[in-house]
């Protein structure tokens, strides 16, 4: 068959629905659309009249076309009766629960819940992104550092500087140790420094080095936990 893919140019879109307007199976909205169009379109009213006439002619014709022979009915009924009734009933029951199972499985495949799931996933993703993207509150930073320093408390050292040491020299030394001044100076002139985590040998070595800096350091002691 070589029908064009589309209805000819110039034909109103409503004309494509006229056969179903004539057979009464259009949805209400489509029926309303066609009815409104028909009020103002003489061509489509004419087309509808032709379709109604065609429908009448086809009905009249098909009513006169004979059906199959009575022999066919007898043959079909005999074949149906020949199928064991009990098996048919069993089949019906099997079909029933199998059908229920089939319907249930099919309902899982019907994507009614997919939009809901998609929305939930999107919202969850957005919340996670916002949470990750937000800057950490200060208290979290303090607490995490505190947690980190729990193990480095053993790495806290107390330094006593020479009276001649300047503030700049003290800061430079602390910076060189990659430490942080957490206390001091005390009335006794002591500074407590927190150092990055390191093992005992490294700590001892560091203390030994500090205690050789007589120009700057009077004493360096490790605070034991």
């Amino acid at each position, binding site marked *: *068959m070589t*029908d*064009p*893919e*589309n*209805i000819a140019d110039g*034909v109103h879109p409503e*004309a*494509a*629905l006229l*056969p*179903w307007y*004539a*057979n*009464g*199976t*259009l949805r209400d909205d489509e029926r309303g659309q066609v009815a409104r169009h028909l009020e103002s379109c003489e061509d489509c009213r004419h087309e509808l009249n*032709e*379709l109604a006439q*065609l*429908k009448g*002619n*086809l*009905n*009249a*014709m*098909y*009513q*006169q*076309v*004979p*059906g*199959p*022979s009575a022999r*066919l*009915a007898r*043959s*079909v*009924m005999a*074949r*149906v*009766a020949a*199928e064991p*009734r009990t098996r*048919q*009933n069993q*089949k*019906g029951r099997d*079909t*029933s629960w*199998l*059908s229920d199972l089939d*319907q249930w499985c*099919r309902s899982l495949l019907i994507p009614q819940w997919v939009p809901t799931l998609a929305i939930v996933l999107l919202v969850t993703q957005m919340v996670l992104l916002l949470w990750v993207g937000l800057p950490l509150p200060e208290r979290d930073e303090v607490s995490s550092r505190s947690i980190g320093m729990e193990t480095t408390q053993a790495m806290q050292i107390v330094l006593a500087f020479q009276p001649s040491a300047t503030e700049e020299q003290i800061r430079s030394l602390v910076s060189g140790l990659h430490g942080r001044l957490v206390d001091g100076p005390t009335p006794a002139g002591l500074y407590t420094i927190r150092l990055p985590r390191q093992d005992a040998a490294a700590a001892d070595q560091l203390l030994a080095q500090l205690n050789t800096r007589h120009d700057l350091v009077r004493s360096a002691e490790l605070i034991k936990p």
Partner: protein
Amino acid sequence: MDATYQSDGSEPDLLATVAMGDQSAFERLYHSYEKRLYQYVSTLVSDAALAEEVVGDTMLAVWRGAGTFAHTSRVSTWIFGIARHKALDAIRRSGRRQREVDLEGTGELPHPHDHPDAGVLRNQVTRLTQRALACLTPEHREILRLVFYEELPYEEISVLLGIPTNTVKTRVYYAKQRLKEQLERVGQKEPI
């Protein structure tokens, strides 16, 4: 469509009863569909014996598979779908070209309530319609019957024929045009 064959909302219930193995329910279903099915199959299959065979196979398939009806369409669409598959299978098996449909020779019966002249006129129109229809392709005959006699919505025809709804609309549009052309042609040969 003839009121005798008008389906109603009880068809799914009737089919459910058939699914339980009720032969009397099947007999009712058979008699409400035999003529419709035979005529529908005849739009696709030209051989009367083959058309009867397809109808018989279709109704047996309905008997055996009634429990598989999924309620996603009308019962009629489901049954016509089975018939269509079996008809196309039969055509493939027989290897015959379906070029002419035997719709001739059936239009001579007067309508029981017609005036004699009206009866003559009706028979002439029916005969012309038969001749014009016989000149159409099987696809055009089939879709005109589904729309104007079976009164199926275009969505169900789309499912039945396995084609997009837009193609359904286009096919009906051109089928109607071709039928009109053929009616004019045979009307000139045999004026009413």
